[in-house]
């Protein structure tokens, strides 16, 4: 396992703790570690050098503020610089054109077609009327893929039909958009290598034909050192305006984000965060910087919770908690809203790494199925049993176990945890603000 950037830097700072000022030795030690950790985060070598030089300049000259320790001072510099590099604020799309034209370009397999559909869906939810042009005629069935996705998200897709020239397809797509009154045109292009001059000339011709306001470079978050070369290649050939960073739902540290931004000088505008069309978000430099530094993406977590837990049921639950009337039915409701938030693994990725959260690393620690099983057990009970779990005797338990495909032992465990939770709630009646369901939900993982 690679140490996270945060772990390493924290390690350096631990060594630095208790010092009154930054000595050259401190700075050198810290920089070696920062350099290594950036490399381990897949930031490309030239970018690492450029980045550490910048920090060095600031750190050497920096007067450590009275209230800050040297460690805190370097943390601040690293974090500020990382944020500055990733882009100061949320980057928005230029949708001025009539129609606004957006082209997606990038290497094979980076996620252009999926991103085209995700972007179309997002713009649709914002009240736009997009048309997606399938101008990837190279990969077999790329058009078919886009047509299917278009149907899923309810956005029309312009198909090439018998046309074989992607430039012509793009041009016809633009005409179609004008004729049908579409206000946004999204052009999906074929994946190509930046060193393939012929294909790069072709994509230049496509952009020349439709004159997009936005040319977005689609980059895979798991890319390594090559990110710099491919991004530079595309930036040299095309007037890039921004970046879409895909597959950020994995466990890659995402150093490619830094590499691509530093190379192109263009902001990341969107990130792909999952396989479904709605798994597409605006990019937040702050959060990315924090995530790379291992400080966790708490903001995203909070937003997710806020978006899924509706205020009414939360209030109701709070009231029940206060009176100690929390039943298995309420628990089920809670589990359902947890499930709505998405895979637990992705939620845990958002938490700060290191410290107490260290134990949560790796998918082994999260047993999504425990959640399903718990729900199944509660579902297999009668309403009466859910309200008054104490009536569950041996034969009832056997029935519930058979109904949910679990065992009596598991039912017992659930009941025991439920009782513990109730007791906890009663004792905490006055002070309780939120519920820690983790112990109950994940008996196979965190709880046991």
């Amino acid at each position, binding site marked *: *396992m*690679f140490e996270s950037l945060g772990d390493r830097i924290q390690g350096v700072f631990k060594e630095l703790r208790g010092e009154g000022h930054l000595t050259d030795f401190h700075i050198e030690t810290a920089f070696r570690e920062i350099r*290594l950790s950036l*490399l*381990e*985060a*897949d930031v*490309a*070598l030239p970018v690492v050098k450029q980045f550490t030089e910048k920090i060095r300049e600031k750190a050497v000259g920096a007067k450590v503020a009275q209230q800050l320790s040297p460690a805190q001072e370097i943390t601040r510099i690293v974090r500020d610089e990382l944020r500055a590099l990733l882009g100061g604020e949320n980057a928005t799309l230029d949708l001025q054109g009539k129609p606004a034209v957006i082209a997606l370009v990038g*290497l*094979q*397999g*980076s*996620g252009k*077609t999926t991103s085209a559909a995700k972007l179309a869906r997002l713009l649709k939810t914002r009240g736009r009327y997009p048309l997606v042009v399938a101008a990837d005629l*190279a*990969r*077999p*069935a*790329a*058009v*078919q*893929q*886009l*047509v*299917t*996705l278009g149907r*899923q998200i309810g956005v029309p897709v312009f198909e090439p039909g018998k046309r074989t020239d992607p430039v012509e397809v793009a041009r016809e797509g633009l005409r179609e958009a004008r004729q049908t009154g579409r206000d946004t045109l999204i052009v999906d292009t074929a994946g190509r*290598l*930046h*060193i393939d001059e012929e294909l790069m000339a072709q994509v230049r011709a496509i952009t020349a034909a439709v004159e997009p306001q936005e040319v977005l470079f689609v980059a*895979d978050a*798991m*890319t*390594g*050192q*090559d*990110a710099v*070369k*491919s991004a530079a*290649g595309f930036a040299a050939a095309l007037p890039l305006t921004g970046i879409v960073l895909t*597959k950020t*739902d*994995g*466990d*890659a*540290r995402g*150093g*490619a984000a830094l590499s691509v931004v530093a190379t192109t000088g263009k902001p990341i505008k969107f990130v792909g965060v999952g*396989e479904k069309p709605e798994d597409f978000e605006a990019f937040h430099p702050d959060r990315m910087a924090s995530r790379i530094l291992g400080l966790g993406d708490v903001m995203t977590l909070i937003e997710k919770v806020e978006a899924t837990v509706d205020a009414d049921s939360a209030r109701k639950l709070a009231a029940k908690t206060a009176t100690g009337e929390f039943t298995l039915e309420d628990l089920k409701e809670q589990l359902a809203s947890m499930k709505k938030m998405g*895979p637990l*693994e992705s939620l845990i*990725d958002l938490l700060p790494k290191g410290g107490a959260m260290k134990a949560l690393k790796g*998918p082994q620690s*999260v*047993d*999504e*199925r425990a959640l399903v099983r718990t729900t199944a057990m509660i579902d297999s009970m009668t309403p009466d049993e859910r309200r008054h779990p104490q009536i569950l005797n041996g034969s009832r338990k056997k029935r519930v176990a058979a109904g949910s495909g679990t065992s009596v032992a598991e039912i017992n465990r659930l009941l025991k945890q439920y009782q513990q939770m109730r007791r906890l709630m009663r004792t905490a009646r006055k002070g309780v603000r939120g519920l820690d369901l983790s112990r109950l939900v994940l008996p196979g993982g965190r709880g046991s």
Partner: protein
Amino acid sequence: MRYLASSEMAEDRKDAAPGARTGFFAKVKRGLFMTHTEILEKLGTAVKESLGIDESVLASLEEALLSADVGADTADALTRSVRSRAGASRRQDVEALKELLLEEIEKVIASAPRPGPRADVPLFVTFLVGVNGSGKTTTTAKLAAREKAAGRAVLLAAADTFRAGAIEQLQTWADRLGVPLVRHREGADPSAVLFDALSAAKARGVATLFVDTAGRLHTKKNLMEELAKMRRIAAREVPGAPHETLLVLDATTGINGLEQARRFVEAAGATGVVLTKLDGSARGGIVLAIYRELKLPVLYVGVGESADDLVPFEPSEYAKALLGDDVAH
């Protein structure tokens, strides 16, 4: 390698297709040209100036490895080995140092079990697994083309029922290559596709079945378990199946490739790697870390988009390519 029935077969193939070998070099070279010239120049200068090995040379060497995505740990280990070996006899020239590094790289590659001959079974089942966009479907088609060229009856299973258009993509390839395909509707249970494909393969007496699975990030536990389930089904229907599980890895992948390989070995029983998209400027150096930590061998490399752009992995050629050896000559 393992797809070729025997060593003679491998020989045949080499003789019959010299184009594949030169193709490998030519295509890889094109991308390599851009990168390492600079580093090697630096390396040469450093050596000339100091008339021997010094830390700046080693640092350049390490940088060459790092920019090939070998990863900090592996780059450090390789550089250490070279340092300790070169230390004994100083005044090495740059070629001698590079030679040492090449040997060290080949040593790492040799530490993994060499792929043996193809198992002698009536039906050889191969799974293709990997993260999204690594090139599984294209690789499936390329492997099928190789098998067909080797004179064996092939069947494809379109078990990527998740990604829109994936089935159509494989169908297009199947039509092009003239090989049969078992497919269900999009969104169908991939295990059901597999089951049908296994039954069809047995009934028709085909020699090789390739199963194209949906791309999945290695961190998605449920999806990884789906692969485990598919393995169980394969083993139940055909003893010993899947005989091969190939992790399709994009050469542009960074450090995360090691984690991907680790999880796909654990959850999906990956037995080998296909390194794709080596025709770009990426070097895929993470496979060295995979060799070193997991002893998982690379079996094939993908060097282009057409059906014959898949060639057996050759360690020494790859090691040279990794260091940009061709550029120096």
